[in-house]
């Protein structure tokens, strides 16, 4: 050693190696995520950006290695160690180089593993996402099944063959299975929020129903109360009949509207009450769907043949604005017009359920106007868009925007197939994958076979296929049920029933919720089901539910009949509705609980 290195004023090392916390300065992944969230980078381009980032990382690493080697050489020079190409310095540098390359190889291996895991994670999550979509569809189908069975007219059992019962049992079993599957699914926050909103609205309307009963009795007296005015405004009702026409005439006009909508759409509005959710949503929905500028109920439903005087009555109904909503100082604000575009999420959800499409209700506005021809072009790709793209676009993972877009990002010549897509598919902002489960479904085919120009038009025709009784003119019905105020909201009932796993109509929740558990337990003791039991114990006759549960002793021996009469008191409830529940874990859980009624029990469920 000839020189004292400490005397050297120059840095001994010339090895500019990046700080190990380099990512805090550059944050290239953060930028990628930001760009991705902002839509600047499409899903397909994420891989490219990741590759780009890794290239930079690799470049930094190579530079660090070179600098380390240069640093060592400089050091050796400066401390005067002889570097003659044969001495230990050669070995030293070789050793360092070997070390650096080993570290680099280790780093590369770690990154390769991470890349594999990243790709697998993406693939796995994509599959789970697709599965969620499928499950969402299954949920909709289950709802439809429940609704379908609930709408079956009740038939006296003497006139029904055993076959029918078997079918009903099969259907109930299917529903029970579906519900068990559904049990494991978490309810999305949007649905919870939507349900909460519906329940709140329903509660508010129940209050209003009381007021409307009074209105029918006392006429304009109802409107003298500020709180009633506020309720009407909250419901989007800003106009009332004029004095000349009278409250009765206004209510009649709504009745007419309900009857007209029922005849066109079979929406069950008569049972819904005058200002029920269904009526409100139907008016708003069809007002927009058919004629945004409609002034009267008959225009809403596109019926130009309505008697002039009825259309006129609606106009009269709309001529007198309500006082404005009450504000803090007791004054009233000016009434606001009902917004034409105020289609509720609930009604959108209904439409989507009818179609059987598992997309967000909020997106209904985006899809309802898609021309059928465009969707047909999509549906021709029967195997689903991704499969088709993978096969035809060189197996690349092409995102929707590219698939539907104008670019040629695939690197292939624009083939006939790509042209076919570009010219035939124009779904705008809609992710085509949302329709993937619908493509081969009967509902998708039914839509394509229809005369509807778009989904929005088509969905209106679906309402008419519901099996609800609309033969009774609306005007002959009592518009507001006396029981409305005490009824549990339909949506809440459905929710409760789902929690319980009972496949009965939500409308009937009010009938079952208060059944004493002791009575249900007695019923469930007939494990084999009521008909089997009755057939065996009641001399093999086909005994209807009323007889089974009733007061008569028409065909039975005294002992059996008394046993039923004293132990089972389910009122109007068909015990078969609990058939699949008897042996289920949910049924057992209820029976083992301390709850006195189903309603009490459901409150303990989360």
């Amino acid at each position, binding site marked *: 050693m000839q020189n004292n290195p400490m005397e050297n004023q120059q840095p001994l090392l010339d090895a500019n190696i990046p700080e190990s916390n380099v990512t805090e300065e550059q944050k290239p992944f953060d930028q990628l995520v930001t760009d991705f969230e902002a839509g600047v980078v499409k899903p397909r381009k994420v891989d490219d950006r990741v590759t780009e980032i890794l290239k930079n990382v690799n470049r930094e690493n190579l530079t660090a290695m070179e600098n380390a080697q240069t640093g060592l050489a400089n050091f050796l020079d400066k401390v005067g160690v002889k570097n003659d190409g044969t001495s230990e310095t050669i070995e030293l540098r070789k050793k360092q180089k070997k*070390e650096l390359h080993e570290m680099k190889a280790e780093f590369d291996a770690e990154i390769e593993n991470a890349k594999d895991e990243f790709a697998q994670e993406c693939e796995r999550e*994509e599959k789970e996402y697709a599965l969620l979509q499928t499950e969402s569809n299954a949920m909709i189908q289950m709802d439809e099944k429940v609704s379908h069975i609930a709408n079956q007219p009740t038939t006296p059992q003497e006139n029904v063959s055993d076959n029918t019962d078997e079918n009903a049992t099969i259907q109930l079993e299917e529903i029970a299975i579906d519900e068990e599957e559904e049990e494991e699914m978490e309810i999305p926050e949007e649905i919870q929020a939507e349900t909460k909103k519906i329940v709140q609205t329903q509660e508010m309307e129940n209050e209003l129903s009381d007021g409307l009963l009074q209105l029918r009795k006392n006429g304009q007296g109802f409107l003298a109360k500020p709180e009633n005015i506020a309720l009407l405004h909250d419901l989007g009702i800003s106009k009332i009949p004029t004095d000349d026409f009278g409250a009765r005439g206004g209510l009649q006009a709504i009745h007419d509207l309900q009857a007209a909508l029922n005849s066109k759409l079979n929406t069950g509005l008569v049972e819904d009450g005058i200002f029920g959710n269904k009526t409100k949503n139907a008016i708003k929905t069809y007002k927009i769907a058919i004629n945004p500028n409609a002034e009267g109920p008959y225009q809403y439903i596109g019926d130009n043949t309505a008697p002039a005087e009825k259309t006129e009555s609606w106009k009269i109904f709309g001529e007198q604005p309500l006082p404005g909503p009450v504000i803090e100082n007791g004054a009233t604000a000016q009434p606001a017009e009902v917004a034409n575009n105020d289609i509720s999420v609930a009604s959108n959800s209904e439409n989507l359920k009818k179609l059987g499409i598992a997309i967000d209700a909020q997106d209904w506005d985006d899809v309802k106007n898609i021309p059928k021809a465009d969707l047909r072009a999509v549906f021709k790709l029967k195997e689903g868009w991704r499969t088709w793209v993978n096969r035809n676009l060189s197996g690349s993972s092409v995102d929707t925007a590219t698939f539907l877009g104008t670019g040629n990002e695939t690197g292939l010549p624009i083939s006939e197939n790509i042209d076919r897509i570009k010219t035939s598919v124009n779904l705008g902002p809609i992710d085509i994958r949302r329709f993937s489960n619908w493509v081969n479904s009967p509902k998708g085919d039914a839509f394509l076979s229809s005369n509807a120009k778009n989904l929005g038009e088509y969905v209106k025709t679906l309402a008419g296929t519901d099996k609800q009784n609309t033969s009774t003119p609306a005007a002959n019905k009592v518009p507001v049920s006396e029981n409305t105020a005490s009824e549990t909201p339909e949506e809440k009932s459905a929710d409760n029933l789902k929690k319980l796993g009972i496949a009965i109509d939500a409308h009937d929740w009010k009938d079952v919720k208060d059944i004493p558990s002791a009575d249900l337990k007695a019923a469930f003791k007939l494990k084999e089901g009521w008909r089997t039991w009755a057939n065996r114990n009641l001399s093999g006759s086909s005994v209807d539910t009323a007889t089974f549960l009733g007061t008569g002793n028409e065909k039975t021996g005294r002992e059996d009949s008394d046993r039923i009469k004293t132990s089972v008191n389910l009122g109007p409830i068909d015990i078969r509705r609990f058939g699949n529940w008897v042996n289920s874990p949910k049924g057992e859980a209820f029976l083992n609980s301390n709850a006195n009624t189903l309603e009490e029990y459901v409150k303990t469920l989360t």
Partner: protein
Amino acid sequence: MNQNKILIDALREFQKTVETAQKKFLDGVKSSLKQSIKDVEGISQKQESEILAGLESELDAL
């Protein structure tokens, strides 16, 4: 959209792995250089201590 969130989560995880691996690598490069200097022969123990003491801040800055 849910799927975006899934991809972002996967990206974040990947980012963490890359950052950790690079930190390990760069720290290793510096350690290697330090060790190489220590391995230089012909320097006495005292000299080596003096050199390394003088180099410490320089090395840490790498």
